[in-house]
């Protein structure tokens, strides 16, 4: 049974990745899982300088999911290079660095700083809904998405994945724009903008009022968008959005995802990535699939 997949020239031992911002750099999960078994660790967003993040409350539960407004709290690229790359390199897995910024030059600065570092993939985060300037602003306009993609691509030494926002009317327009600007792959979906109000206090629960909705509640939207994007571009697609089980992962692969990422499920169960991997394997055994690549995008 062949589980290995290829994303922009980088071979992953299996299609199970972690979704940025739900896995840190992996340390929090080491007590429960063997990181060697992951196809790729996609780390929490890394900025050029340390970011404080948003005030609490940052998390609220919703039916079948949660809304977060963490705001990309991170200790910055220098810390990441000094502490997290050597730590992650103890494991036989791929490293994908999620890059965040408020301006094009901030994104470029991170990619430039990582150019000589030992990481396998970059993921351009132009879709975080929790940052006022930059962030999602780049992800909802095709021209801005293309501009930041081509600027980062110029300095990047690793293949560049662009992570798309679902908070747009036509996601294929953005996908085509970043493909035209030189992206090597596309990942989707980031969280959907959502909100919750405390009816007794008559106030928003999150300090930022709105945040990113994730979890199984968003899965059907994600499957639809992965299918649309896979039809619209030639680039490899990494699918995510509410994957809880191996069966969920298979749905994304059939829709056109070459690899998938487990996000919120890891927060609910630190062993979720392993369970998804085992579920994918058992589906392949049950249905007599020899190579995972034979399933990618076969539902038209």
């Amino acid at each position, binding site marked *: 049974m062949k589980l290995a997949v290829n994303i922009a020239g980088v071979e992953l031992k299996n299609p199970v990745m972690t979704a940025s911002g739900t896995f*840190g750099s992996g340390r929090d999960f*080491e*007590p429960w899982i063997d990181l060697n078994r992951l196809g790729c660790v996609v780390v929490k967003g890394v900025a050029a300088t340390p970011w*404080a993040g948003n005030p609490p409350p*940052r998390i609220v539960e919703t039916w*079948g999911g949660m809304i977060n407004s*963490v705001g990309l709290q991170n200790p910055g690229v220098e810390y990441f290079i000094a502490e997290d790359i050597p730590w992650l390199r103890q494991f036989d897995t791929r490293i994908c660095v999620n890059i965040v910024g408020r301006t094009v030059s901030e994104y470029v600065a991170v990619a430039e700083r990582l150019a000589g570092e030992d990481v396998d993939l970059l993921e351009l985060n132009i879709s975080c809904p929790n940052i006022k300037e930059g962030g999602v602003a780049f992800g909802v306009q095709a021209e801005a998405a293309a501009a930041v993609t081509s600027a980062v691509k110029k300095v990047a030494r690793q293949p560049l994945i662009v992570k798309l926002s679902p908070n747009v009317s036509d996601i294929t327009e953005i996908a085509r724009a970043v493909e035209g600007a030189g992206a090597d792959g596309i990942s989707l979906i980031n969280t959907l903008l959502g909100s919750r109000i405390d009816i007794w206090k008559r106030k928003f629960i999150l300090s930022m009022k709105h945040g990113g909705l994730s979890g199984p509640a968003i899965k059907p939207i994600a499957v639809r968008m992965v299918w649309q994007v896979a039809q619209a571009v030639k680039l490899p697609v990494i699918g995510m959005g509410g994957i809880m089980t191996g069966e969920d992962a298979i749905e994304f692969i059939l829709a056109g995802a070459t690899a998938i990422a487990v996000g919120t499920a*890891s927060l609910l169960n630190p062993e979720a990535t392993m369970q998804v991997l085992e579920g994918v394997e058992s589906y392949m055994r049950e249905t007599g699939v020899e190579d995972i690549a034979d399933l990618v995008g076969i539902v038209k």
Partner: protein
Amino acid sequence: MVEKRAGRTACKILQNRQIADGIFEIVLQWPKILHRPIAGQFVNLYCSHKGRLLPRPISVCEIDEDKLHLVYAVLGKGTAEFTTFQAGGLIDLLGPFGNGFSLEGKPGRALLVSGGVGTPPMVELAKQLKARGWELDVVCGFRSQSYLVEQLSRYGTVHIATDSGTEGFSGNVIELLDHEALSGDTLFACGPGPMLKGVQTWAKAKGIPAQLSLEERMGCGFGACVGCVTKIITDNESGFIYKKVCKDGPVFPAAEVLFQ
């Protein structure tokens, strides 16, 4: 390499009963595969309802030989669901998590100060401190009805304050501390933010080192989501950094916490 830990584990419910208005005690058989909790740690409890995915972090009230006592307040639909769980059934649990209280230092006189549902962790803390030779004053504030007083009385002198004046001193815990002219060599507190802020100010004025156990809305409970943060005083531009209540805390030295 870090030590491997057991994942989400279904624990047998031995008892689940109301002990005050909106306050329940649940007793679980503690599986040997899980780490033994220490005072000030918490566990994640999970709902059965498939729409309620996030854990409810509940602080450890007391740990016997092989039984875990948890006391929880019914604050929403998830904790309301817990009240329907019957003895003999199972509840999904992950943990324990958090740093817990530091019990280091030469035994002397300790002040334990709690507010409402911040009281349960004082039970295991009081037990551990007494076993180490500390003399204890336990000061508990409630809205109108006390609970866990009998358990706490085994380990020290309990002083009750209620907002309504229906039991004990009429007022808050800070007023009661002053009213009874209580003091100590160290102080431990757990309760809502405004109370902890008051305790921080009071302890600083008296020169008593204090540990505060904080509360915040949590996502995962083990450090990954970075949802449950609190401001910790730091020598940088903004004067603070956000630290995780679930993993860096929930217990912080009082002098480090920046309240709004």
